[in-house]
């Protein structure tokens, strides 16, 4: 029982990370039809920014942790918005080329991070509470899981509120459904593009700092390794669906944990298998629209 609880909560924690990456991917894809390969770099940069701050302020303090989370968000948002504004926008409506530019950006930025911070993992320090455990139903659960889950829930609520209660949110929701009709109502939908990139970048940057605490280190490869699972999550959840991304994040991560424990470390393979099954049964994903 305690093992199952531990696996479940750890799965939720990992799922939270996947969601922080996948939410942005899904929003960006839903509105713009762009698959953003540079999303992992937003995450990595957020993680490094958080680490640089913690290094200077002393990683054990809670104030530092919160400041580094905020900094990760801001850095992610700014870099993502700049990416959209400087690169993606020039290729308006040319989706393949937009994807290619993000591929180039991902390759170039990871190499740049290698050059700046080195290829070896850098270990992070955090408030001691995070590395302690809390007993739940007999399971000793590392506390960082709770931080991850809380952050992802907050991000989910914030994005939902933004989409529901703001003008930009209205434009984004409409644009996901029918972008050309939005422009035919006299709305410059490109402003919404920058906004979704910024939101996605903020979530990824936050996810980067959180990932560095979950894994215990930062490295230039951090974003890329999470990005692949986030892609899978996005496809399983249905491209463009935020709720689908949330459900699939949890499903994929929990499956991964259980398979790793009970089926001899086959978590990653089971995830690919799940993807194959979902595509066979329902090619548009759990909550995806018809293609």
């Amino acid at each position, binding site marked *: 029982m305690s093992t199952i609880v531990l696996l479940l909560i750890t799965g939720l924690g990992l799922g939270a990370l996947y969601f922080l990456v996948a939410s942005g991917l899904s929003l960006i894809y839903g509105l713009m039809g762009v698959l953003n390969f540079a999303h992992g770099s937003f995450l990595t940069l957020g993680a490094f920014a958080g680490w640089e701050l913690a290094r200077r302020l002393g990683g054990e303090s809670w104030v530092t942790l919160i400041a580094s989370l905020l900094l990760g968000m801001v850095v992610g948002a700014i870099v993502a918005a700049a990416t959209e504004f400087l690169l993606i926008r020039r290729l308006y409506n040319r989706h393949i080329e937009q994807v290619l530019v993000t591929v180039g950006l991902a390759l170039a930025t990871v190499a740049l991070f290698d050059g700046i911070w080195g290829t070896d993992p850098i270990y992070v320090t955090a408030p001691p509470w995070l590395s302690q455990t809390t007993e739940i139903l007999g399971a000793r659960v590392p506390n960082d899981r709770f931080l991850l889950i809380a952050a992802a829930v907050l991000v989910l609520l914030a994005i939902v509120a933004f989409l529901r209660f703001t003008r930009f949110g*209205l434009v984004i929701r409409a644009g996901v459904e029918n972008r050309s009709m*939005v*422009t*035919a109502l006299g709305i410059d939908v490109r402003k919404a593009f920058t906004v979704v990139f910024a939101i996605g970048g903020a979530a990824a940057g936050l996810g980067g700092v959180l990932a560095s605490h979950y894994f215990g280190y930062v490295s230039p490869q951090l974003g890329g390794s999470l990005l692949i699972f986030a892609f899978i999550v996005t496809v399983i959840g249905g491209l463009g669906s935020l709720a689908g991304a949330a459900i699939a994040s949890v499903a994929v991560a929990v499956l991964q944990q259980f398979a790793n424990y009970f089926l001899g470390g086959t978590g990653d393979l089971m995830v690919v298998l799940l993807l194959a099954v979902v595509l066979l049964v329902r090619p548009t994903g759990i909550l995806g629209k018809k293609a």
Partner: protein
Amino acid sequence: MTDSILTVSNLSASIDGQQVVESVSFAMRPVGVTALLGRNGVGKTSTLRAILGLIERSGDVTIAGERVDREPTHRIVQRGVGYVPEDREVFASLTVAENLRLAERDSSPNRELIAELFPDLTQRAGQLAGTLSGGQQQMVSLARALVNDNRVLLVDEPTKGLAPLIVMDVARALARAAETVPVLLVEQNLQVVRMLAEKAIVLEGGRVVYDGSADYLLGNEALTKELLGVA
């Protein structure tokens, strides 16, 4: 040409590399309803979409004397173009109220007019547009165009697939709109055209083959049959 609200000359357009409009030219007068007619496949819908820049196009388009053919869609619309697309294209996952709010461009949108023309929509403000009937969706689509003060309305097949009773509602709303703004109407239902349009422009192979009174055209059965292929 200055007395035309909308002119199109040598307009060509393509979708996925296939030409759908071939060098169309016409001018539209700034009053009343002008029907844009022609046989099936002559590219009436595509012409409207090309005017708005929703599909790749070349050629000259002016609105109130100003060239707009190099502008992006949202700029053209901001100049005062209301668009009611074929198949309505309401945002199914948005509520009726959100659909209308999204469409509001003016600082003082015509909410009273909408409430008066479409009382049904006020009642259903909180309902998801995707759950409305076809007729109600058409009301939303029309309301989205009428909520702003426009210089010209482009209305594409507003009665397509609707029950006769609702067709009359739509026609009434359009007639009311036409009192204040010129309307370019693509419509299969010739009865509706007869009711609303003063002028008719008939396209054939990109050329205007008729430009004149709608009543005269539709009153002359032989001419109608020759130009439109139907009686």
